[in-house]
């Protein structure tokens, strides 16, 4: 089972536990939204995402039944009016009646409670958990949302980003109808390396594919590190010997990003780059030192090849 499925199952269990505990639909939607956002942020802080690390993260957030009990108790407490509130009701009963009328009116206009069609918000480029939280707030249960991963990984897109939605933005969702979200597959998963990574990281660019020999590389955090870059890309299309230059940046902020709608074009920013290597002319190797890296996941790119030829560096 993938980590996305683990998280989706957890949110389903939370939703079911909240229903069992008697939480109101609005409180359920709010709470699931809050927990979804919490998961999103906790997930971004995982050095390496694995089934084990995600389960540990969810354990830390709490068991669904425990959270549901807490939310239900909070709601019950809220429903018991304080003495001050009761006094206000006695003093201003007419105002209270008006207020109740207004609140009732608002509740009746909510799509979730009225059964009226829901107008779909723009979910594009949202993380899927954020999109689910938005839908929850509109009264669309997660069981009505189908999540499909696109077939091919897109290296420069974070995992689980909504790329397409159906029905389209602004369309009406009839009661009981489903929402389909197509989400990015993201970079390949790098499993934690059980061996101690060497102090010199060997990276080879292969001639046949003009790409990295491996998808995942590993290094130790906050230790002196050298990189040996072997450039085997003897010639690109023009037949001219290639000169390659490695750049490394945090995975959330790749140095190079493609220009939307312009295949092959990309923009670059050195602002977040933590390593810029020397130019290495094929067929040669060069060893260079880099500053100690903090724990985290990085993206290794080659300036001359663009963002679609990249690898992941896990520093732990």
């Amino acid at each position, binding site marked *: 089972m993938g980590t996305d499925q683990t998280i989706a199952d957890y949110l389903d269990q939370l939703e079911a536990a909240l229903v069992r505990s008697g939480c109101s639909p609005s409180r359920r939607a709010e709470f699931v939204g*809050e927990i979804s956002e*919490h998961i999103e*942020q906790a997930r971004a802080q995982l050095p390496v995402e694995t089934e084990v690390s995600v389960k540990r993260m969810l354990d830390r957030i709490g068991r669904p039944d*425990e*959270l549901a009990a807490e*939310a239900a108790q909070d709601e019950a407490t809220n429903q018991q009016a304080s003495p001050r509130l009761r006094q206000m009701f006695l003093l201003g009963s007419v105002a209270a009646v008006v207020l109740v009328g207004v609140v009732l009116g608002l509740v009746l206009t909510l799509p979730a409670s009225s059964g009226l069609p829901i107008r779909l918000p723009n979910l594009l480029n949202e993380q899927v*958990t954020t999109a689910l939280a938005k839908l929850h707030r509109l009264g669309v249960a997660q069981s009505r949302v189908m999540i499909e991963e696109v077939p091919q990984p897109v290296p420069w897109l974070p995992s689980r980003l909504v790329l397409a939605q159906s029905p389209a933005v602004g369309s009406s969702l009839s009661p009981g109808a489903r929402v389909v979200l197509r989400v990015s597959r993201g970079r390949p998963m790098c499993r934690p390396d059980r061996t101690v990574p060497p102090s010199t990281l060997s990276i080879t660019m292969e001639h046949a594919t003009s790409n990295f020999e491996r998808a995942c590389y590993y290094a130790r955090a906050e230790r002196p590190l050298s990189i040996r870059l072997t450039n085997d890309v003897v010639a690109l299309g023009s037949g001219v010997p290639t000169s390659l230059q490695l750049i490394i940046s945090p995975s959330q902020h790749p140095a190079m990003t493609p220009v939307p709608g312009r295949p092959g074009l990309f923009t670059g920013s050195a602002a977040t780059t933590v390593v810029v290597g020397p130019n290495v002319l094929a067929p040669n190797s060069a060893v260079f030192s880099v500053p100690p890296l903090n724990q985290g996941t990085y993206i290794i790119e080659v300036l001359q090849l663009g963002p679609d030829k990249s690898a992941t560096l896990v520093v732990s």
Partner: protein
Amino acid sequence: MAQIRRGTIEYCVLALLRDGERYGFDIARTLSEADGLVTSEGTVYPLLARLRRSGLVDTTWRESTQGPPRRYYRLTDEGHSSLEEFRDQWKRFTTAVEAVLEADGR
């Protein structure tokens, strides 16, 4: 003990916000890292909702460069007053309890 924890935890949240606003994840993680304060990170959200409803904190949504928008919490004037009042009472309470416990042990 659970009742004491339940009664004091909301003031711990107010204390975390005394020096400035924080977002929910940050509050939940800080409390979960303090030994024995909360059983799990997720249980902080009902508490934050309660503080919001009682007017002791208010919230704003802000865009984040590192993911989805975040809901930030900050103390209201009423929250500040409530925290200060609790601090005085808590000092008196803990002093009294410690005096009794020490006397009992002699």
